[in-house]
């Protein structure tokens, strides 16, 4: 059993009481807290009071055990797998807490060396090698590209008529626009040439795959290596396959129990501080706080729940932060519905909603920096964020809502509006049940819209099949966004695969065509915001709020920094243990 270096609970309670007393005095004298709003960023470390040093182990509880280490394979595309493996496989970039892409300068320099045609040059550190001594070469870049460019097919899908791709990649965005990858002037220089521009080019090659190990994992078949070569059962007894191009290497993998990362001695960059990162699979978030109180784990990133946050806050010697990540909630309005097909009705709904109240009752319960989301593409922490929906729909305006409905021909028929030809304005709100947060959101939406004369029936479903089939009026669910703005294309483009609202806006399509190939970031941000402005004018969806996230650590671990874009492990190499 590891010793916990912080004081006993008895001493902790006395210190807490003293601090509370001081806090009360300070509150009486001090000014209001500075509220700079929420966002997918907290760029200050949790308030560690000690400085860590090199050495020691850090135990980081993992809430979702990987099913396979290749998280770019569609079946194994899990966030926690990415959190872990980003410390192992070579990562040319990482996303900062403010959503900007930061280059991993220990590994590579990246330069956009051509715009028409688009050419990106990666200059690797000449010392860059995989942990088995194999040099990182153009072969690795080519394999990473070919496995995700959706060109190699095995036939055609009999149902959809779409091609069946050999590599079961989670996404092909961007890679399909690359024409070639070649060595430049030296073996360390990689030149990536595009056949058509791709604006989110910086997000690619995250991670870079060790091609030789994927080939080995597939017994010589690169496709098998990608699709099944890094499954849990294969890897557990073959850790040699998991070579590292990062600060840590996997030295133990016990399925169902834990994974252990140790310092990669071949890592050519700044060495990580901790000797080992131990990753026990504690998949029930409710058990993590007691484990932390007992000194069994040092860092945790469980799903944010009010009780869990409160329980953790009461543990002596633990620091925590609530941040707002890239998963955000919204309401989709199905324009196939006879009422929602009218713009005035959608506008009336947006006017009738009190999103401030929803935020206050839900995410603000975790942290009062939660704010209403007024942009579908960027988050408040991102400097590209513009609150495009704030002016028109920032506050509830029931009178305006009623005026819109009456202007569209609706008549108040004893509390609920009715259209002479389309009937009573009764809508269903649907969400995937069980989900207490969404249930509460739906109930709030119902109570608010009823005040504007819009009848709402609660219609939860046990799955998400209603989205694809269009069997909903108002749909309540979430998207993950932030890192790759071009991925919004399929959600808002007229014939987009994820355009569940079904609203066709040709101007939005044209703007996406322009934005997705615009390589100047400032111009592109402007185009994306123009898209959002149009979406606010036409209202296929109404953004609500970002979902809170919770990160906690014992105060003897320093440099734990919340990053809503990259996940909790993004700077694990900088975590240090205080002696």
């Amino acid at each position: 059993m590891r010793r916990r270096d912080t004081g006993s609970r008895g001493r902790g309670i006395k210190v807490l009481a003293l601090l509370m007393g001081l806090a009360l005095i300070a509150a009486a004298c001090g000014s209001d807290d500075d509220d700079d709003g929420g966002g997918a960023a907290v760029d200050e470390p949790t308030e560690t009071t000690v400085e860590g040093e090199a050495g020691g182990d850090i135990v980081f509880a993992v809430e979702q055990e990987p099913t396979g280490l290749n998280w770019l394979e569609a079946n194994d595309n899990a966030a926690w797998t990415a959190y872990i493996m980003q410390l192992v496989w070579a990562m040319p970039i990482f996303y900062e807490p403010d959503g900007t892409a930061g280059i991993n300068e220990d590994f590579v320099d990246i330069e956009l060396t051509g715009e028409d045609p688009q050419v990106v040059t990666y200059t690797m550190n000449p010392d860059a090698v995989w942990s088995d001594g194999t040099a990182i070469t153009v072969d690795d870049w080519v394999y990473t590209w070919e496995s995700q460019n959706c060109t190699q097919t095995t036939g055609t899908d009999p149902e959809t008529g779409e091609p069946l791709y050999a590599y079961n990649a989670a996404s092909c965005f961007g890679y399909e626009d690359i024409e070639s990858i070649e060595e430049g002037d030296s073996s360390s220089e990689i030149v990536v040439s595009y056949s058509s521009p791709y604006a989110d080019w910086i997000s690619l090659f995250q991670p870079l795959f060790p091609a030789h190990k994927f080939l080995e994992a597939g017994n010589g078949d690169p496709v098998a290596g990608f699709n099944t070569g890094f499954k849990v059962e294969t890897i557990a007894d073959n850790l040699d396959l998991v070579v590292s191009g990062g600060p840590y290497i996997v030295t133990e993998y016990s399925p169902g129990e834990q994974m252990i990362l140790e310092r990669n001695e071949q890592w050519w960059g700044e060495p990580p501080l901790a000797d080992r990162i131990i990753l026990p699979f504690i998949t029930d978030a409710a058990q993590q706080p007691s484990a932390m109180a007992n000194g069994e784990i040092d860092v945790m990133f469980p799903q944010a729940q009010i009780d869990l946050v409160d329980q953790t806050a009461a543990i002596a010697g633990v620091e925590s932060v609530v941040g707002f990540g890239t998963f955000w909630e919204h309401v989709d309005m199905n324009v196939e519905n006879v009422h929602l097909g009218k713009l005035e009705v959608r506008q009336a709904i947006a006017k009738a909603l009190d999103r401030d109240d929803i935020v206050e009752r839900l995410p603000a319960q975790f942290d009062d920096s939660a704010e209403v989301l007024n942009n579908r593409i960027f988050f408040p922490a991102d400097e590209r964020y513009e609150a495009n929906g704030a002016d028109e729909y920032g506050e509830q305006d029931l009178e305006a809502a009623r005026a819109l409905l009456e202007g569209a021909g609706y008549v108040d028929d004893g509390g609920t509006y009715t259209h002479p030809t389309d009937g009573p304005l009764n809508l269903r709100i649907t969400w995937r049940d069980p989900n207490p947060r969404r249930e509460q959101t739906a109930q709030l939406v119902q109570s608010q819209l009823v005040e504007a004369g819009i009848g709402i029936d609660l219609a939860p479903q046990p799955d998400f099949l209603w989205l694809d089939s269009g069997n909903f009026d108002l749909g309540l669910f979430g998207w993950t966004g932030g890192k790759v703005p071009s991925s919004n294309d399929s959600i808002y483009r007229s014939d987009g695969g994820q355009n569940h609202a079904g609203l066709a806006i040709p101007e939005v399509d044209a703007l996406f065509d322009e934005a997705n190939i615009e390589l100047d970031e400032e111009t592109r941000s402007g185009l994306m915001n123009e898209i959002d402005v149009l979406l606010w004018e036409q209202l296929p969806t109404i953004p609500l709020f970002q979902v809170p996230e919770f990160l906690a650590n014992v105060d003897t671990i320093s440099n734990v920094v919340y990053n809503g874009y990259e996940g909790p492990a993004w700077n694990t190499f900088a975590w240090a243990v205080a002696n």
Partner: protein
Amino acid sequence: MLPFIVRRLLVSIPLVLLSSFLVFVMVANAGDPLEDLRLNPRTTEAQIAQAERNLNLDKPVLERYRLWITDVLVEGDLGVDNKQQSVGAQLRRSLFVTLRLVLAAIFIAIVAGLAVGVVSALRQYSLFDYGSTFAAFLFFSLPVFWLGVLLKEFVALPLNDALEDLGFARFFGTVQENTPGFEGGFWDRLNDTAGHLVLPAFTLVVISFAQYSRYTRASMLDTMSADYVRTAQAKGLSRSRVVTRHALRNALIPVTTVIALDFGAVFGGAIITEQVFQWKGMGTLLIDNIRQLDVNMVQGWLLVTAVTVVVFNLVADVLYAYLDPRIRLD
């Protein structure tokens, strides 16, 4: 006896098959296992269609069940789960974890339950008897999840703090079977394993202990009032000899069968205990895969558990007949 055993096994087969069918239909209709894939805006329709085909979601439930049961009966293949991982491998792993927990818990429950039951019977209406009766009913009433959490909060943490204050290492673990990243020799590992086993085993023990102690007490009272026991006492045999050589063996007969039945039931996964203490055994496997709507995994769990229950039920009956020659199994 052999015809009896064969008959029981033959009757059990359709029972297990029926259970597997009912569970398959329920889980298959409980929701959509591909919802994560559908919600990813970068997933193509072809990928979703391919995933549906891989999981046979494009076929009717009856057809899916037929395919599954054919693979199981003909090839002995439990298939793969929603993530294309072997069901058999995961079951083996989880089985071993649960066995360790359940065996330890049942062993402790047997020893403690029998001892308390016997003493309670011999000292009927004494303070000990009243105390053990009260404890048994209290333990029967305790919800397992509540007990587990209480043990962590009010036993493990304070005791560990006290040990640390006295200069010792913390002993009681609250999650998993060993300290994460544990490094140490054989005795250190044994100590660490014991520290992590105590609380979950105790959580499992209390209900079994209550059950065994009450059964033992009742059976012992019954036996002690039998004519042959009174005869033995009248013949001048010492009380200890009467109890141990004459009464106890016969009193244990019904208790043995209860234990055999209990083992089968508990083996299905001390679901709540494993969740609370994060032991990745059969219970956690079931909960996680019900949540993920993984039909193949749930079916695999069901088969293992159903066979275990059937076998141990049969063992209970056979044991009863073996220990009590008055019983004939036809």
